[in-house]
């Protein structure tokens, strides 16, 4: 169970995350939605401790994550793997080496500097690459892959971290619909088969509805909605996205990145 209580993060005058309290039971797939700048990314970075909170605490299974330091902090980061919009791979290294970076927190100084990994670790990495269908590209430089392939490598890297939580920060925002679907399918498979809690930031509503057990909607650093996908009403959507300038409502098919749904949902979801 991931418990976030009264967490706050300010950048100067800006309250990026403002007094957020959430409980996320293990094994859930949670979509975090909201417009750009709503604080979704900051929330995920606070959980992984890439950013430190101004106040408030995050705890996981009784451990206070916000107080971790040094090696404990690095092990925590390894156990809540993060996936980024821009993949954040080492483009000049091959795919296998990139995946093995997921083991880095468990290495001593010398072996990590010399890039020495055990056979078990390599086997683990190859199995992870197999799960995302990227074994054939294992020795190719990561920078030569397409965006969708790079994101799948990033997922394989997350898998070898043996994470308890998977944090995905806009994982499909830079991908075409086919690859977006593939990446979201992998995230759901990982969630269902491995029982890993998945927190995914999305800016497309229909993707969140389709894949997530639960939706958290943020606006201006605050949580405005926290519940099942079907409970999210049009009025709430209007509130979250604050579409003052739009004459019609928000057409989910316009922002959609999924393939199958885009055409079929067109008729029944248009809000006029």
């Amino acid at each position, binding site marked *: 169970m991931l418990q976030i209580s009264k967490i706050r993060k300010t950048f100067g005058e800006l309250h990026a995350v403002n007094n957020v309290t959430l409980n996320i039971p293990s094994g859930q797939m949670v979509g975090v939605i909201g417009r750009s700048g709503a604080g979704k990314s900051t929330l995920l970075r606070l959980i*992984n401790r*890439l950013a430190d909170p101004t106040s408030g605490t995050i705890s996981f299974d009784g451990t206070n994550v916000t107080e971790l330091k040094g090696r404990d902090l*690095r*092990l*925590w*980061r*390894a156990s809540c*793997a*993060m996936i*980024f919009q*821009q*993949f*954040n*791979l*080492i*483009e*000049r*290294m*091959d795919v296998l080496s990139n995946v093995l*970076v*997921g083991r*880095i*927190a468990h*290495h001593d*100084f010398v072996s*990590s*500097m010399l890039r020495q990994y055990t056979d078990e670790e390599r086997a683990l990495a190859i199995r992870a690459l197999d799960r995302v269908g990227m074994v054939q590209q294992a020795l190719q*430089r990561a920078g030569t892959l397409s965006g969708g392939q790079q994101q799948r490598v*990033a997922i394989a*890297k997350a898998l070898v*971290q043996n994470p308890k939580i998977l944090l995905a920060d806009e994982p499909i925002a830079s991908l075409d619909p086919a690859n977006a679907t593939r990446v979201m399918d992998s995230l759901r498979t990982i969630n269902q088969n491995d029982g890993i809690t998945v927190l995914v930031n999305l800016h497309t509503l229909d993707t969140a509805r389709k894949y997530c057990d639960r939706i958290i909607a943020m606006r201006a650093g605050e949580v405005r909605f926290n519940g099942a996908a079907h409970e999210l009403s049009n009025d709430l959507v209007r509130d979250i996205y604050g579409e003052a300038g739009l004459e019609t409502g928000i057409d989910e098919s316009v922002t959609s990145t999924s393939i199958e749904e885009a055409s079929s949902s067109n008729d029944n979801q248009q809000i006029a």
Partner: protein
Amino acid sequence: MLWRNCVIMTSLSPPLSVIDQFEVEYAQTRKSARRVQIISTVIFAIVFYVTASIGGFFDMTEVTLDNGDRVSMWKIWAGLPRLGEYIYKTLPILRWDSLFADIGEWFWRWKVWLRLLIETILIAYMATILGVIGAFLLSFPASRNLTPNKWVFQLSRRYLEIIRTVPELVWALIFVFCFGVGPMAGVLAIGLHATGALGKLYSEVNENIDMRPVEGVKASGGNWFEQIRYGVVPQVIPNIISYTFLRFEINVRSSSIIGYVGAGGLGQEIREAMSLQEYTDLSALFIIILFTVGIIDFVSERLRHRIIGISGKG
């Protein structure tokens, strides 16, 4: 929708006024740009004139012409012919019928010179390696985007600055005083200066990297060293190798002169030839250095261009 808005907008306001306003603003921008241009040209001209006169470029000197007249003329015109005179003095006498013997005479100390040439290159080689080690290790704390904290940043930056500001010849004098005459002083002097110069270049390379891989490593639980090793080094290695070759070229030039103060290499022969007024020795040494530096420049440039294209495996 958008199209309709456009029509309304243009019909409400006279279409010319926006363009007219643009024309006025454009003319103003042009005018002020030209003013800045004129003022800066004048300032540069004045500064150039002042520095030239402080540098003695407008000093006059008395010269006796061929017909015995004494005239006053600018030093630079009076002195230029003497440059040719000096070069002429260094030229050896080469006759066609005894060409090989004459060349042999010209390079009469070739055994000593060859030994010293090898010493010169080895000084440059070892100094470059010392410089690379020091600069590589210090360049990461000396990069604004990578430094663990601002104290380490300031310390490593200032250290690199100091060791590169002191010229190699001054370091060489200090080290000759400490360790005596010989190539060791030269290696240390050039190595120290190279550390400072390379450290600056490396850290600039580091500051221009893409930080996303670094964040990716950090998010997986990598510590500072691992973030550098995996996130930074693969990105910067081609540039680092390229700058290192460039530095080796510069170091060969430095090590060929550093013997002037007793720190090993060909420089000591240059000093001797100058003080003994062995003018033809000077031209022989000059040719040796020119050829060596030329060959090393050529080879290292080709290598550099290949490495820039090569994929780094980190």
